[in-house]
């Protein structure tokens, strides 16, 4: 895992790569990177509880989306209960074993409060329009989070967030037309989300919950 500082410097590299072509990079994160492509489905990963009577829960990478942003606007400020951000979606691309296509340009935005809350449209390679609503959760930790360990609160604001480890998760609800993408209407998804700069975009990796 990486600190936010190294995360951001890695992100700059990715941005440059993104500008130059359609290759996403290994450099973006210290997380264990798994290969992924349109043709190659990754195996499901199963998680279990402390005792065998607890049902296992599986995640399987379904697709990824790279979403480029256009406007960034703020109504009030984020430390106000009335704070509302607006970050419009300029476009993007989608790849992976279960969905390929694009983010429909200018089809919506992230209208966030403390974490994101997006409404926009995807367009599958066969032309199907798919509505995506993402709700996000975000936590910052003073140090790298380890499962099962008590959480350390982040340093007191307004200290710089450098060095704070951030867990950003998207939970996504899709409305897809009846047909080949119908499965998205009845599947729970969780995604990780990595904000990149230069150009301003976020990569979401969507996992279906099995």
């Amino acid at each position, binding site marked *: 895992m990486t600190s936010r500082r190294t995360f951001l410097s890695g992100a700059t590299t990715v941005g440059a790569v993104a500008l130059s072509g*359609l*290759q*996403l*990079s290994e450099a*973006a*994160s210290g*997380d*264990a*990177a*798994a*290969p*992924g*492509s*349109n*043709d*190659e489905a*990754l195996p499901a*990963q199963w*998680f*279990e*509880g*402390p005792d065998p009577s*607890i*049902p296992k*829960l599986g*995640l399987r990478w379904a697709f*990824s989306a790279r979403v480029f942003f256009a406007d960034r606007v703020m109504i009030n400020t984020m430390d106000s209960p009335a704070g509302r951000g607006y970050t419009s979606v300029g476009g993007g*691309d989608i*790849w992976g074993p279960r969905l390929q*296509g*694009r983010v429909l340009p200018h089809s919506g935005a992230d209208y966030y409060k*403390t974490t994101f809350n997006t409404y926009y449209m995807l*367009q599958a*390679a066969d*032309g199907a329009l798919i509505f995506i609503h993402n*709700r996000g*959760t*975000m*936590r910052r930790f003073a140090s790298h*989070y380890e*499962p*099962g360990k*008590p*959480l350390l609160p982040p340093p007191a604001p307004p200290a710089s967030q450098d060095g704070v480890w951030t*867990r950003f*998760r998207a*939970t996504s*609800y899709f409305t897809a037309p009846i047909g080949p993408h*119908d499965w998205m*209407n*009845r*599947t*729970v998804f*969780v995604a*990780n989300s*990595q904000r990149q700069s230069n150009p301003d975009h976020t*990569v979401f*990796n969507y*996992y279906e*919950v099995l």
Partner: protein
Amino acid sequence: MRDFAVPKTDTRILGKVQLEYAFKLTAHYDPPQESHTPRGTFRYQDIVSGELSGERVTATVYPDSGGQYDTIREDRVRDVDAHFMLKTDSGEWIYMEHVGYRRSDGYYRAIAYIETDLKGKYEWMNNTSFVVTAKESADQREVVFHYYIAN
């Protein structure tokens, strides 16, 4: 023809989501009440009681604090929308929301969003996505939920 190119191979996943088991909730409901609406069949179920237990938390459902406000769709999938309150053994309040799908093939999964005191003992539940697997009894009056943290 579309005016975009789908990227081919050689892309990489920039990180993984890992699940960590958190706790179990056994919830008891009144029988469901269904009504026909323009959106499909609306299915209301009052939550009567429940016990939540895990390594880091023990709580009980606050009786009649909510329940399920689900919709049975044309394709028979049920859109789950549950809201209720719990109280921990140390007296703290917890708000829980669930959004997910219950299918006739036994797939019952949801995401839970939890809010509790930012200065309390259970602050770790806030701002976290919990991935939930659930199982209903035959009469649908008992549901066992297992929660995993999406790390």
